[in-house]
């Protein structure tokens, strides 16, 4: 783990500001995440059925589908909040079986939440600093003695936190409580907090929900920047303009099943997708018209 060393040393001056490693881009089209036959049931409700897909290094992968299609459930089984009933995730060459959410984060998957879950009563900077937890090491002894190593690590954590706030454009409000930030800032702060864990895969659950056109445009640019700097993105989103604008490939879920996968433009033209979004009859009417 090259990133691990950087956590203790001074912040990296050169190179991309976001973790994940530029080397992943060099690996080109190699596979980062492979899901095979994922299934999840809640009582009598089959939330996910036999969902398989692959995400390549350095891509922005969209996950769309009507409300209740199972998108967030897929996020939750991927990040260890739920256990899968069937199927397996292979992440970076190793299976993600029976891992707790914190272990998944340590392996390099960071996420945001559909209904923002920031640490509301802590400052923006503290929120991002908490994201550094998983890549830093100071324990109780270090905290109480404040030895040189701990102090250096604390400085690095704060410096990196500030860098990330600048990266997402929230630096000017670094010392405000998270709950006092405007909505768009909160969304971006959540992304900064996730990036602080140095993910290989950044999973965003409807980051543009509730944003206006300007904010969405800024978000789109941020996503491009994050990908450019070497982090692969998995994106759940309802804003089709954003999805079509940033995603390389898209997976469409409906009633917990995969109904289409492929380049964004192809998926948009897929009759099954139009069907799922608009309802069968309407789609037929539209075609007839």
């Amino acid at each position, binding site marked *: 783990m090259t990133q691990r060393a950087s956590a203790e040393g001074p912040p990296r001056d050169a190179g991309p500001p976001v973790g994940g490693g530029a080397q992943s881009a060099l690996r080109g089209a190699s596979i980062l995440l492979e899901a095979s036959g994922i299934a999840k049931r809640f009582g009598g409700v089959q939330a996910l059925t036999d969902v398989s897909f692959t995400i390549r290094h350095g891509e922005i992968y969209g996950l769309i589908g009507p409300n209740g299609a199972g998108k967030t459930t897929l996020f939750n089984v991927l990040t260890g909040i739920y256990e899968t009933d069937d199927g397996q995730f292979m992440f970076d060459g190793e299976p993600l079986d029976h891992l707790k959410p*914190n272990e998944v984060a340590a392996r390099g998957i960071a996420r945001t939440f559909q209904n923002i879950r920031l640490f509301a009563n*802590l*400052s923006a900077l503290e929120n991002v600093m908490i994201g550094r*937890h998983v890549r830093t090491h100071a324990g*109780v002894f270090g905290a109480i003695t404040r030895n040189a190593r701990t*102090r250096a690590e604390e400085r690095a954590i704060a410096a990196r936190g500030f860098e990330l706030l600048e990266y997402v454009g929230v630096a000017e409000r670094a010392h*405000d409580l998270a709950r006092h930030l405007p909505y768009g800032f909160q969304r971006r702060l959540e992304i900064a907090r996730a990036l602080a864990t140095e993910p290989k895969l950044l999973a965003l659950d409807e980051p543009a929900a509730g944003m206006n056109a300007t904010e969405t445009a800024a978000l789109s640019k941020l996503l491009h920047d994050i990908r450019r700097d070497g982090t692969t993105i998995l994106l759940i989103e309802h804003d089709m303009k954003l999805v079509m604008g940033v995603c390389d490939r898209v997976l469409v879920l409906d009633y917990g099943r995969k109904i289409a996968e492929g380049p964004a433009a192809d998926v948009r033209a897929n009759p099954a997708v139009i069907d799922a979004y608009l309802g069968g009859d309407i789609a037929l009417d539209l075609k007839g018209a």
Partner: protein
Amino acid sequence: MTALLNLNRRRDPRLAWAGLAVMAIALLVLPFALAGIGTAWVRITNLAILYCFLALGLNIVVGFAGLLDLGYIAFYAVGAYVYALLASPHFNVHLPFWVILPIGAAFACLFGVLLGTPTLKLRGDYLAIVTLGFGEIIRIFLNNLSQPVNITNGAQGVYMIDPFRIGSFSFAKPEVIAGLSFSGPVKYYYILLAFLVASIVINLRLQDSRIGRAWEAIREDEVAARAMGINTRNMKLLAFAMGASFGGIAGGMFSAIQGFISPESFILVESIMVLSMVVLGGMGNVFGVVLGALLLSYIPEVLRYTVGPVQRAMFGRTLIDPEVIRMLLFGFALVLMMLFRPAGIWPSALRKRELESKAA
């Protein structure tokens, strides 16, 4: 960037140091001033400091990590009994205090983990109920572990517990050093003060550290904390263990100062009292907690000495038993404080406001 990391440092360091020096001198002279009023007040102050220490321990669990613990006094009891059994004629063991206090802390820490492990998935009300039960279990055990083998001496308690002693220097005996006469309680005052200062430093440093931030993250949103890679299980156990260790040390000191302990000293009301200190002072704010502990320790004592005389001065005789009216006024004061300062007298949000004004 370094300024960001020293959130608690005042703007002018010289002023802060001068303030600290004045406070230190005042605290060093305090017991002699109190002894002038009456030795009882030195004892009351000692107990108040002990409660500060105890409240700071609970603050780690409740204030930092947000785990509502209603059985905290159990760890105090464990520490007190470990000290009592290892330094009294009961087993005829007389170990020095610097050996027993760490043992007591370790024992309490073990009990903290014992309580923490089964309650990891509980939060709020549910956790409160389980911890409350745990506190009672410990007390009832202490009450009944007198047979078949007499370990705790049951409800009679353990007596003739050794005071702190270093060689021939005993903390219980009065002594004249450099022309000043130090009574037993005055000597204890200084050692308690040293412990309190250490615990304040530990609390402050823990709060402003990687561990402290992880606790705060758990308090704010456990799901998000886990998603950010925080091992919530270990962090919660750590909070329980650290809080319990503080309780264990406080218990040991209590044993030594009192010279006698029984299960009576560790009833539920004591747990609630310590929790009130934390909540009333301002959960999560170290100085708020100290303030809360001092207020709740002193107010009942001040009332004890004033309620009777005031009544006699006003009506010529004692109308209501001071003991009754004392607790009535105390409860009334608590209700008023919670009505007007629900976040505590000195809430930790002050720190946040300070942060915000700095950023502006």
